[in-house]
Every structure is written in structure tokens, then in C-alpha cells.
């Protein structure tokens, strides 16, 4: 307990920064993921190929490598500089966001696409018979129904994203995962420090997985 209370100045901002990292990248990867999923079911073969290539490449790359690229290699391309973000830590936060968003959106895309596949073909046929265009059909018939199948696996993708955000600790982003590194500088026990971090994540993740289970139960009956 002492380790937590004595170092609240580390834990508070650390946890807060993790939550920010999670919220921003969750929102952005949901948007990007849905766009990718729409590409993957589009009638134009080129669009499908591009969506599929992106997902295959990203899904098979370790997230650590993506972080590695954005933290170390990307600055060498001089598209953005640390001046753009005011400071080096600002840049590293941006790099972590980019890595998390690009990586997670591939998984979001797969979840949405498999959700679309659970919608019976007759639904699409019926909406075509009514004269809806492809976009109208996706937006008002297929996607709303797919949501039902999508929510539980989407929750587990988001839980994974939350846990993945700790990798940022290895790349100079100050957040929950990096607390222990600072604790050792203060001569505190890293073991106990990390136990508190682990507890924080358990407290965040367990309600999310409980919610996921209850949604899964409640929504699977409805169809």
C-alpha cells in the first residue's frame, strides 16, 4: 500500500495517460476498422484486394515491431518532427497512438467483416429488391444487424487494445506500464510497484469481460 500512496504522483498520471491512450486509439481504430471492413466487402475487386492485403500484413506483424517502427524508424523519414509535437515525449505519445490505431484497426476490420457474414444473404437480397443502393443496404440493413454479432468479439478486441497500450512503456511513453521503471530510480520495490499496475489492469479488464459475457448471453438469444 505504501508504494502506491507514496508514489501517487507517478501512479495518477500514469494510469490517466493509459486511459487517454486507450480512448483515443479505440475511437480512431473503430472508425478506420469499419472503413477497412467496408473495403473488404465492396463490389470492386481492387478495393477488396487492398483491404485484404492491409489486414494480412498488419495482423501478422508483431505490435512491438509496429511500435519499434514508429518510435525509431519513422522519424528518419522526416514527415513529422518532434518540433511538431512540442517535445520528444509528445512525439512518442503520437507514435504510440499511430502504432495502436493502425494495428487494432486490422482486428476491428476482421470482427466487423465476420459480423457482416452472420447476416443472412436474404437480407441483402431483400434490400436490393427494394431498390436500396450498396451504401444504403450496408448502412441501414446489414450493419445494424451485424452489430449484434459484433459486440462481444469487439469487446475482446478493445480489451486487447487496452492491454496492448502497455507496450508503449517500452518506447518512452509514460503510462501505467512504465511506472515501475521510475520506481526503481526512487529505490522502491519494482515487484510491489508492478503488482499495483497489474491490479489496476485487472480492475479495468474484469468488468469489461463481465460486460462482454452478459452481452453475449443476452444478444445471442434474440436471433
Amino acid at each position, binding site marked *: 500500500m505504501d508504494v502506491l500512496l507514496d508514489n501517487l504522483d507517478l501512479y495518477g498520471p500514469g494510469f490517466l495517460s493509459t486511459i487517454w491512450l486507450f480512448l483515443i486509439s479505440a475511437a480512431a481504430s473503430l472508425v478506420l476498422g469499419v472503413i477497412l471492413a467496408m473495403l473488404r466487402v465492396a463490389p470492386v475487386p481492387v478495393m477488396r484486394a*487492398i483491404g485484404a492485403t492491409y489486414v494480412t500484413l498488419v495482423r501478422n506483424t508483431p505490435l512491438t515491431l509496429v511500435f519499434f517502427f514508429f518510435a525509431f524508424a519513422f522519424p528518419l523519414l522526416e514527415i513529422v518532427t518532434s518540433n511538431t509535437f512540442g517535445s520528444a515525449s509528445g512525439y512518442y505519445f503520437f507514435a504510440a497512438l499511430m502504432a495502436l490505431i493502425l494495428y487494432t484497426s486490422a482486428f476491428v476490420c476482421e470482427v466487423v467483416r465476420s459480423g457482416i457474414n452472420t447476416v443472412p444473404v436474404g437480407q441483402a437480397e431483400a434490400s436490393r429488391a427494394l431498390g436500396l443502393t450498396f451504401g444504403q443496404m450496408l448502412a441501414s440493413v446489414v450493419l445494424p444487424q451485424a452489430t449484434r454479432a459484433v459486440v462481444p468479439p469487439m469487446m475482446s478486441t478493445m480489451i486487447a487494445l487496452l492491454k496492448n497500450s502497455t507496450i508503449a512503456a517500452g518506447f518512452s511513453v509514460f503510462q501505467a506500464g512504465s511506472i515501475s521503471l521510475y520506481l526503481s530510480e526512487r529505490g522502491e*520495490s519494482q515487484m510491489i510497484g508492478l503488482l499495483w499496475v497489474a491490479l489496476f489492469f485487472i480492475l479495468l479488464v474484469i468488468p469489461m469481460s463481465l460486460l462482454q459475457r452478459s452481452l453475449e448471453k443476452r444478444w445471442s438469444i434474440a436471433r
Partner: protein
Amino acid sequence: MSSVLFDVPGPRARLRHRLYALLTIAVVAGALGFVVYRFTVTGQFEPDKWAWLQYEQIQLSLVEALLNTLKAFAAGAVLAMVFGAIFAAGQLSDHKIIRVPALVVVELFRAVPLVVMIFFFHYGVLKGDPFYSVVLGLTLYNGSVLAEVFRAGVRSLPRGQSEAAQAVGMRKTQVMSYVLLPQAVRAMLPAIISQLVVLLKDTALGFLITYDELLEYARELGGAFQFDRPLVPVTLVIGAMYIAMCLLLTWLATYLEKRSRRNKKVLKLEKKPAEDVVAAV
């Protein structure tokens, strides 16, 4: 594509689709062109930055780093499967005193981020060779996920399987090990292999505690001044290596799934919607 979301296009739609295709190609070509432009401007195509590929010493070190990655993967995979099997059996136990702790352990290790676990083992408990911290972390995390996979597999088997086994006089352990687990493993093989892909990718976390694996070597090589710090080329090459390894595993999974679909002895288990997507880490 399993569902047909659109009609066979007519002449006008075909024309429109061709227009969309051209637009998409233009956008993607623009994006790639921008990347190539940035690469050229910042000199990523300079022969200096790619010279390292020719050195035999570097190639050997690369293979050695790859072997270290595979070593962590192999150890983690075997141990995680054992861990998963034991805790799946524990969760399915009839005795509350075994079932509840098994459930708690699985939920616990699934909830804690793998990085935090590896840091914990490396800086808190083991403090020695990072290899053990990496393998222990991979085992506990992926083992817990595999335990859930095994459990879901056993649960989805028809009740008649265990009833029949009990009827011929098998004990509970025999029912589990001779009848239920083999069938569950077979039905869940694709999911198990997808989890192994996750495990393979997660070995890259060893980089964070300086385990000498592929990514750690990439950092070392990328900072080498005699090659003008070839971080970008090195990252691309290492990325291609990881993607190739994971694709090989994925192909194995698809191949096994196809084979098991042909085989009538494998039970067709009811699939939950959208469950074929394995969580992101």
C-alpha cells in the same frame, strides 16, 4: 466471400466499378508514391543503407537471432499447451475446490497485460536470463487463453460422448483424456494455431527486456554507423520475416481445417457468430 452482398453487376454498374477501381488505385498509388518520395528524399534507398544484407557475419547473426525467437516460441508453445490442458481440465472439474482456483488463475492471467507480467518476472522475481521471463510470461498468458479454447471445445461436444464413455465404465479421468480432449483438440485446431501465431508475435516483447531475439538484433543493426544507421531497411526486412513466419503458421491452420472438413470422423461443432476472430494479442 460467404455472403453475397451485391448483384452480378450489369454494364452500367461495371463501368461505375471500373471508375471506382481507378480512383482507388490512384489513391493507393498516391500514398505509395508519397512513401517512395519520402524514402528517396531521406536517402533510404542509398546503397549504403542496404549494404549490411551482403555481409555473411550479419546474415549469420540474423539467423542466430531468428533461432532465439523460435526457441522462445517453441518453449512457450509447448508449455502453454500443457498449462492450457491442465487448467481446462481444472475448470471442468466436478469439485469446487479445484474448479474455482483454476477459474481464478485463468481469469487473472488473461486480465494482466503480458508486458506487465514479463516486466514483473524480469525486474521482480527472476532477474536473471530474460529468456525465462519471456517464456514464463508467454506460457501463463497464452496458456490461459488456450485453457479457454480447450474448455470451449470440450463444452461444445455432444453430451452423448461422455455419457457413452461413462456407460462403458470409464472413470472421469479416462473420459476426459481418451474421449473428450482428443476430440476437442481436433475440432479446435484452427483456433489453437491462431493462438500460436499470437504467441509467435508476442516473442517480440522480449525486446523490451533485452532478450536477444530478432527485434533486439534489429535495434542493434539499425543503429550501426558503418551502414549509416539503416533503421528503416532493417525494420522492413525484419517485418517481412515475421510476416512470413506467421503466414506459414496460418497456412498450416487453413490446411488442417480443410483436411478436417474432409474427414468425417471430426465432429462438426456449432460455431458461434464471429468467434473465429482471435483477440488482438
